[in-house]
């Protein structure tokens, strides 16, 4: 079946602009995660959604980062007033409710110039 999809695959933006990154999880997966992969910080957790519960935002690095998940499916990660240190690959993952492993999308490579 279809895996996790993310768009765009690449995004180049100027410092100070806002960007939106999209994630389509695997159908039926109730848990959705955003992670960031960068050279300096490795792979780090950003935010977690489970069903209709309030998201766990404990990994968001600043208040410029926000995310929402509409209808329990598609999620959008928004970065406002982008900075050069936001340059990274943003990975989305989803998980079936009664399973343990997460399935990752191909990522969005964000470059802030």
């Amino acid at each position: 079946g279809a895996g996790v999809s993310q768009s765009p695959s690449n995004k180049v933006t100027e410092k100070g602009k806002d960007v939106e990154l999209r994630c389509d999880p695997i159908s039926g997966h109730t848990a959705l995660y955003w992670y960031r992969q960068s050279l300096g910080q490795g792979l780090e957790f950003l935010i977690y959604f489970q069903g209709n519960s309030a998201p766990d935002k404990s990994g968001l690095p600043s208040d410029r980062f926000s995310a929402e998940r509409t209808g329990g499916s598609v999620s959008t990660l928004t970065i406002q007033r982008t900075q050069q240190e936001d340059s990274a690959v943003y990975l989305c993952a989803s998980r079936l409710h009664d399973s343990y492993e997460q399935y990752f999308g191909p990522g969005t490579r964000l470059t802030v110039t």
Partner: protein
Amino acid sequence: AQSVAQPEDQVNVAEGNPLTVKCTYSVSGNPYLFWYVQYPNRGLQFLLKYITGDNLVKGSYGFEAEFNKSQTSFHLKKPSALVSDSALYFCAVSPRENAGNMLTFGGGTRLMVKP
């Protein structure tokens, strides 16, 4: 707070030889443990997990890993390496008590298998 260490940035092995990629962790209680593989310009692919039960777990592509509670390790192994196994490997941990199962990753180990 939990942490994961992958002490080797790179592991080199000849095709056909056994391979080991090391992982140790620090977490309170008994964790869930995972290995993921990343090929160039791709996302992470799930390889295997340890949840409970037998300490030796088998996963995709002939990989296996052994959970060692006393040494807090979860090394990835394969009896006979293939050139196509060359990739970046990540060990990850999730505390059993964390209902969200957010993953903490190690820094990654690049595996190079030479013909």
